[in-house]
């Protein structure tokens, strides 16, 4: 671990220097905060978290797998990816990327995702003021969790503390050396104190003990109908969830050119499990909601040992009908 600090007056220079390294950071597009390439000179907004998680940088919503042409037998692969630095990643989103990493290197190494991931350096921002619906501490994370990050930045008031966590992170910090100063023991202690205070500020909690093993016992429970009744079957919770990774592969053809591309799909859409025969094993929102909760809190735990939820709170904030995962888990615990 390599700790440096940056004075706030030098922050703009720091961002400008990072900008030469293909920088992505939270930017306002209209009213919405998303991770986007930073133009030289643009500043970083104050933010709690972006609407769209940074997963779309290493796992784009639409990705060309290869292109083809009528009459040709060769396919052409997309160009290789560039190195990127993503600044302002919250620890929950980074933990989520670590979870998704294990999925994309599970039985098959997904070259598209893994190449992008290897070329991306994640610079995280510890949360000093968690959002009202954050619950990272309930699912194994925290406002200053380092999992998945290459560098962790903490706002100490007048300075930023930078702690590099991996080789990539160290390389990045070294490239910024002229703007940085050595961090003192006091700074590290101040950071620890802030991290602990942030943990205390989180108001929403659930004890997930026992849930992963016992969720399947609730398969026939009426609880799923009750929870899913208002569900509209839109894709908001899945598309904006940093740990969701389901995709669809489609061929798009125009005249004699075409491409095969992969795009995000949502298990909450009706046609996600629609068979060619017309049968749908998850015909209504009840089955789809049950599947989603089971997947995140039981099936993923079984396969990878971790709950596939990082407590970012986006699904709670953005669900149009206020279907609240913490509410669901509370009901699950009551029913168990």
């Amino acid at each position, binding site marked *: 671990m390599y700790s440096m600090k940056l004075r706030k007056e030098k922050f703009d220079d720091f961002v400008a220097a990072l900008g030469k390294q293909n920088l992505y950071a939270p930017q306002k597009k209209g009213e919405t905060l998303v991770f986007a390439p930073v133009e030289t000179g643009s500043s970083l907004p104050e933010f709690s978290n972006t609407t769209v998680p940074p997963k779309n940088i290493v796992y784009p919503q639409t990705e*060309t797998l290869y*292109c083809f042409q009528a009459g040709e037998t060769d396919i052409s692969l997309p160009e290789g990816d560039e190195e990127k630095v993503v600044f302002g990643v919250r620890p929950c989103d980074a933990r989520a990327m670590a979870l998704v990493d294990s999925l994309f290197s599970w039985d098959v190494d997904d070259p598209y995702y893994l190449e992008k991931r290897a070329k991306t350096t994640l610079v995280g921002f510890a949360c000093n003021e968690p959002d009202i619906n954050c619950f990272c501490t309930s699912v194994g994370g925290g406002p200053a969790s380092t999992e998945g990050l290459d560098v962790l930045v903490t706002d100490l008031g007048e300075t930023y503390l930078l702690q590099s966590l991996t080789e990539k992170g160290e390389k990045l910090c070294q490239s910024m050396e002229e703007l940085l100063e050595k961090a003192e023991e006091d700074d590290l202690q101040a950071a620890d104190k802030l991290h602990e205070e942030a943990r205390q500020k989180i108001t929403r909690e659930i004890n997930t003990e026992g849930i992963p093993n016992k969720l399947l016992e609730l398969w026939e429970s009426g609880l799923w109908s009750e929870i899913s009744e208002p569900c509209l079957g839109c894709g908001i919770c899945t598309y904006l969830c940093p740990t969701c990774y389901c995709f669809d592969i489609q061929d798009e053809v*125009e005249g004699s*050119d075409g*491409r095969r591309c992969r795009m995000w799909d949502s298990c909450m859409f009706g046609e996600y499990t629609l068979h060619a025969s017309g049968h749908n094993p998850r015909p209504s929102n009840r089955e789809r909601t049950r599947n989603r909760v089971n997947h995140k809190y039981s099936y993923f735990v079984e396969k990878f040992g971790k709950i596939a939820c990082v407590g970012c709170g986006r699904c709670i904030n953005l669900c149009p009908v206020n279907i609240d995962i913490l509410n669901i888990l509370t009901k699950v615990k009551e029913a168990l």
Partner: protein
Amino acid sequence: MSEQFKPNIVAFLCNWCSYAGADLAGTSRIQYPANIHVIRVMCTGRINPLFVVNAFQQGADGVLVSGCHPGDCHYMEGNFFARRRFTMMRKLLEYVGVEPERFHMSWVSASEGAKWKDVVEEVVESAQKVGPFDQFRRNKINW
């Protein structure tokens, strides 16, 4: 001298009147611009406004919808519905920034070979004025 831009016009013609009218223009050896690509439909009432959007997506610089005169529709009412439909579609297209010179609708009957020539010339000329369409073309957006 710069080469004059040749627009790609896609025309949806109803089988009974406009298609026959265009055919008459051909058999009468009336010369009209060749950059019009005709798609025959049975009636303008069958035309889904999505066809127009899709034509633009696939590279059309202009779209023409042409049918029988009101009251003369082979299926009695099809063109009345089409008229309402495309009144709304035109307004919507202009509102999102598609130049009004790109979308036209006309009534060309089976005996109006000469009118067909005029319609095509007008459509091609207006599309030429506004240049190539690249607002939401498919291929031009990064594949």
